[in-house]
């Protein structure tokens, strides 16, 4: 479909790029910071061209020091700036974990609300691209466990565009997990639409027999699962969470009260993962509606494997379909 004045067909990475460009234009306090974000445009080219157009003082190439990136972003936010920092890959966020958890997350509360920290931490995350170790992880639960942070992950280009705008406008620190294996997936982006709330889930496929809940890279998989199940006469509903913290339990509950079965899918290890939280709360909320225990499909309690094994580790079509069958068998 051809682009119109307000609608563009964009890859997810390009949608974030346009979103950042819009934010830089709209607010002189917005800054982009990170390793290689300038001339190179980031290793995934998400910040491509931004330094050229906005200069080195707005789009800042940083030393290779993740704690330094987040720690100085905190200082810039204290001075009134709205930094958007890029952590190059998921597994590299850990040197900055201390600054994020002990400082970024807590300073608003410690100051009794006097200090706001509108910092966005962008993290390309997840597997499926054949990378070496520390380049394929899904650490969202480690951040969701920390109060003071908000955690979001878009699954498509349109959400990526709008959720980034909303994350930058938020006065809270937002960890923005970008599904790197979906960076090249294209979708229609209406840049003049009025977006829904940042932390509201979306039903992306209506169904009656079972609810599949996912976010980020697993939403597309769940839509494929629902399409495959439909061929077997099963009518699955797919809910895209979009936000991991806060988590929209009301939307999941509404879906489960309709379908009475729930399977949660994420790439992160199942053990202590976001699926565990969803299962526990939905069990509390929907105990008398459920026809089957809430099942989870995700990674194993093992280091992310070498690339030649990642298809075994990651939830795929068959593993999710297997869980769907088990839930329907109760």
């Amino acid at each position, binding site marked *: 479909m051809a682009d119109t004045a307000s609608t563009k067909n964009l890859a997810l990475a390009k949608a974030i790029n346009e979103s950042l460009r819009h934010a830089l234009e709209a607010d002189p306090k917005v800054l982009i910071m990170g390793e290689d974000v300038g001339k190179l445009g980031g290793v995934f080219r998400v910040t491509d061209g931004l330094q050229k157009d906005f200069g080195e*003082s707005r789009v800042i190439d*940083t*030393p290779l*020091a993740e*704690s*330094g990136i*987040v*720690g*100085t*972003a*905190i*200082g*810039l*936010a*204290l*001075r*009134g*700036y709205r930094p958007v920092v890029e952590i190059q890959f998921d597994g590299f966020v850990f*040197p900055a974990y*201390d*600054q994020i958890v*002990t*400082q970024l997350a*807590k*300073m*608003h*509360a*410690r*100051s*009794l*609300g*006097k*200090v*706001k920290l509108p910092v966005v931490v962008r993290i390309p995350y997840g597997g499926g691209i054949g990378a070496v170790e520390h380049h394929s992880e899904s650490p969202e639960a480690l951040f969701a466990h920390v*109060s*003071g942070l*908000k955690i979001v992950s878009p699954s498509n280009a349109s959400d990526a565009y709008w959720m980034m705008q909303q994350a930058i406008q*938020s*006065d*809270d620190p937002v960890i923005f997990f970008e599904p790197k294996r979906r960076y090249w997936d294209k979708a229609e982006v209406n840049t003049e639409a009025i977006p829904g709330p940042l*932390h509201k889930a979306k039903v992306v496929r209506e169904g009656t027999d079972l609810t599949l809940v996912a976010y980020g890279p697993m939403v597309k998989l769940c839509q494929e699962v629902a399409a495959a199940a439909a061929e077997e006469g099963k009518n699955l509903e797919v809910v895209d969470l979009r936000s991991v*913290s*806060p*988590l*929209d*339990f009301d939307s999941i509950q509404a879906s489960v009260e309709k379908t009475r079965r729930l399977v949660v899918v994420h790439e992160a290890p199942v053990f202590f993962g976001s699926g565990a939280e969803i299962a526990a709360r939905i069990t509390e909320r929907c105990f008398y509606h459920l026809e089957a225990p809430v099942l989870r499909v995700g990674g194993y309690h093992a280091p992310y494997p070498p690339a030649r094994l990642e298809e075994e580790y990651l939830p795929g079509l068959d593993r999710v379909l297997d869980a769907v069958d088990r839930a329907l068998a109760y």
Partner: protein
Amino acid sequence: MTVESTAAHKPRRSAGSKAGASGTERARTTARKSAEPELVQLLTPEGKRVKNAKNAEYAKYVSGVTPEDLRGLYRDMVLTRRFDAEATALQRQGELGLWASLLGQEAAQIGSGRATREDDYVFPTYREHGVAWCRGVDPTNLLGMFRGVNNGGWDPNGNNFHLYTIVIGSQTLHATGYAMGVAKDGADSAVIAYFGDGASSQGDVAESFTFSAVYNAPVVFFCQNNQWAISEPTEKQTRVPLYQRAQGYGFPGVRVDGNDVLACLAVTRWALERARNGEGPTLVEAYTYRMGAHTTSDDPTKYRADEEREAWEAKDPILRLRRHLEASNHTDEGFFAELEAESEALGRRVREAVRAMPDPDRFAIFENVYADGHALVDEERAQFAAYQASFATESESGFAAGTGGN
């Protein structure tokens, strides 16, 4: 007599210097001992002014200091020490859960704190009570977190004095980022970050040096080397004098006598002026001594000798300025008597304020977790409220625990 020095003090300085120590002694002693004579000092422990070529560059930054200014610095140090002693006593009396005493570090903090301008921004660690005093933060506000009624206690933007930071060294990066913002804004204010000798080992401090140098940020790193990181001496942190670290990052480092308030004032003014002039970061190492424990939970008798403390007591920052004031006829007995009365009044005010501090409202748990709100916090606050309300209901219906127990 004014605050001028005489050459007569030079031999005294060199007597303890590297040049005066034999090779054998140096092999036995540590880097910190051998490097101590590199101090910038303007007042000797005996209260006499020092003037030499090395100090001249810094001395000019205090050339305009009047006798009244000196009395002001003395007053600041005395009142800060009094406040600190009161807080220590309050901890012993069970009014505070913990206290981190600054005893011995008054000159480093008052000298550097008084060097800052109102529009400068200060990032402290958790022992900067004297700097807070200089910034106009009411000292009673410092006690809330130690009493356990809050995790901060003051508006950081009220006096451009950030909240205390417990995680060692984290604030050096916040200071650097803030300074990067100051530079972006085209402002001529400066930022000063406080940390200790132990923090110098932290990666965040190294990263803050890197970032500040790369972006030429107007930040002064003020390291109070008080010789001990809880039980670990400085030799467990470094093989080179700490101020020399700056060289590897491409900015100047200077070691100042941290027990000499005049030298601390001068060197910090110099460093802040560099920042304001766009000359970038500076590392100041204030060579001082923590006379008390790390915190009230610590027991320094287990790891350091009495003689060491006694040697440092001879270099007491307050005593040395008093000697100088008295020798210079800048004061009379009335001054000291009035200050003593003011000091007692401060102690009383602090004591009464702490005891009067109310416990926070129980719903404070849920306040300010997020600026824009969070559904889970709202849900848990409602659950908490319902749980609390359930006691009122039980009480009204005669099922309160007290009633049931009878």
